[in-house]
C-alpha cells in the first residue's frame, strides 16, 4: 500500500524529480482505486454531476495475471500460479485524460469505475474529490484493517522456554 520508492528520485533534474513524483502519485492512486469497494466507487460516481463523457480505449476485460515468485523468497524466478484480474482503459472526452483500472477479480464495472476516477483525478477540478471520497478513505480503512489484524496476530506471539536437560 505504501508508494514504492521510485528509481532516480535523488540527484535527478527538477523535471525528472517532478516526473518521478507524478509516477509515485499515480502508483498510489491506482493501488488504492484497485482496493476500493465497488459500492464506494459506485456511490462516488452517482454523486458526480454532470457525469463526464468518456470513450473506452480497452473494453473492460477479465483475464489472468501470472503471479511470479522467487525460489527461497529471493532467488530464481518461477511462475507460481495465476490470478483473475479485470482491466479497463478509457479517455475522457473533455480533456482527453487517460484512465487505467486494474483490479483483482472479475468485476468489469469496478475496473471501469477505477479507470474513470484515475482519469478524473488528473483534472484539477476533480482531483480533490477523488482524494477525499475515494483515496483517503480507502487508505485509512486499509491501514485500520491491517493494524487490527496485526494486533490479533501479535497476541499469538509466544516465547518457547527451553527446559534444562536432566544430564546437565
Amino acid at each position, binding site marked *: 500500500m505504501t508508494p514504492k520508492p521510485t528509481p532516480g528520485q535523488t540527484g535527478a533534474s527538477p523535471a525528472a524529480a517532478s516526473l518521478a513524483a507524478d509516477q509515485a502519485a499515480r502508483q498510489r492512486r491506482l493501488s488504492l482505486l484497485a482496493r476500493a469497494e465497488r459500492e464506494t466507487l459506485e456511490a462516488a460516481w452517482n454523486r458526480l454531476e454532470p457525469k463526464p463523457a468518456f470513450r473506452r480505449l480497452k473494453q473492460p476485460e*477479465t483475464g489472468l*495475471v501470472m503471479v511470479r515468485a522467487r525460489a527461497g523468497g529471493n532467488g530464481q524466478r518461477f511462475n507460481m500460479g495465476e490470478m*483473475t484480474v479485470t482491466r479497463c482503459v478509457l479517455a475522457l472526452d473533455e480533456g482527453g485524460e487517460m484512465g487505467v483500472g*486494474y483490479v*483483482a477479480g472479475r468485476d468489469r464495472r469496478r475496473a471501469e469505475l477505477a479507470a474513470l476516477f484515475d482519469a478524473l483525478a488528473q483534472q484539477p477540478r476533480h482531483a480533490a474529490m477523488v482524494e477525499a471520497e475515494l483515496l483517503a478513505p480507502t487508505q485509512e480503512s486499509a491501514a485500520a484493517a491491517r493494524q487490527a489484524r496485526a494486533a490479533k496476530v501479535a497476541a499469538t*506471539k*509466544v516465547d518457547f522456554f527451553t527446559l534444562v536437560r536432566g544430564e546437565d
Partner: protein
Amino acid sequence: MYVAVKGGEAAIGNAHALLAEDRRGDTAVPELSVDQIREQFSLAVDRVMTEGSVYDPELAALALKQARGDQVEAIFLLRAYRTTLPRLAVSLPIDTAKMQVSRRISSCFKDLPGGQLLGPTFDYTHRLLDFTLLAGGAPPRTEARGELAPDLPQVVDLLNAEGLIEPEIPDADDAPVGDLTREPLMFPAGREVRLQNLARADEGYLLALGYSTQRGYAKSHPFVGEIRSGDVAVEVEIPELGFAVDIADITVTECQMINQFTGSKSEKPKFTRGYGLAFGYAERKAMAMSLVDRSLRAQELGEDITAPSQDAEFVLYHADNVEASGFVQHLKLPHHVDFQSELTLVRTMRAEIEAASAPVAEFEEAAQ
C-alpha cells in the same frame, strides 16, 4: 483404447439432473451460498486455488459448491475455466519478506527477531471434536494487543549472513522463465519449472513423497527454517503507463526448509535449502513442497539418486491431479471394442493351449 460412442443422451441428461438433486441434498436444509463456502470453508477454497492454479476465492468456492465438495473435481473445474481467459500480464516477483504476516514460526531458533507468531493455527489444539460448533456456538473473543515488528527478516537470511547456508541466486532479469501453462514439461526440468509443477501439484501426493524423504527414501534431515502465511502485494507492469503498480494483495503460505549440509574439499560445509509456496493458508502443502523441492535437487547437489522423491521424471509426471484423475478415470468410459478384442484374444490363446495339450494328456494316459 477408448473408441467414441454415440447415444445415451437421455440417460446422461437424467444422470446430470440426479447429480444436481443429490448435490442439493435435503431441501429442508438451507442451501449453502458461495459466500458461506468462501468464508467458512476457506482452507478448502485455498487448496482449490493452489492446485487449480488460479487465485480467485469466489470462483474456487463456486467450484467446490458445484463439485459437491470434491476437491479434485473442483480443481478440474477451475482449470477448465482458466482456459477461457486471456493472459493479461505477468507480475513482478512477489516479495515474501514484506508480507503482512498472520503467522510466522521457525523451528530452528527459539528467539528470532520479530518473534514466533502462531497466528490462526490448528497446532496445539487437542483434536477433540468441538460440539459447540454442532450447536452453533459463537467463536471465542480474540485478543488484540501489541504490534508486529515493522520488519520481519527471513530466518534463512540470518544464517546466510554468516555464510552457513547456500544462498539463493536470482536469475538475470531477461532470463526466460519456464511456464507449464504454455510449454509441455521437458527434461531435464529447470528449478523454476519444477517449482511451478510442485506449486500446482496434488497435496496428498506431495505429502506422501515428502514423508518418504523423512522415512529414509532420500535422506535430507530437514528443519523448518521458517513458515510464514499472510498477505503480499502483487505488482504488475501496466503497459499503458510503462511502470508497475501494486494492484492487489493475495494470501500465500511459504516454507523455507533447511536441510542437511554438504561440503567438499573446495567448499566448506553448509546447509542446503528447499522451498515451498502456495496460495492461501496451505501450510501442509508448502512444507511437503519444500521437502520435495529439496529432494529433486539431488543431481545438482551431487547426491546419489536412489529414491522416488529424487527422480524428477517420476515426481513431476505424476504430480498433477487433473491429469492423474483424468487418466485413471478414463478407464470407466466405454472400452467395449478394446475389451472385445482382448476377450477374443484370451479365448483364442486358451483354445490353442487346450488343443496343444490334448494329445499330451492322451499320451500320459497311455503310458500309465
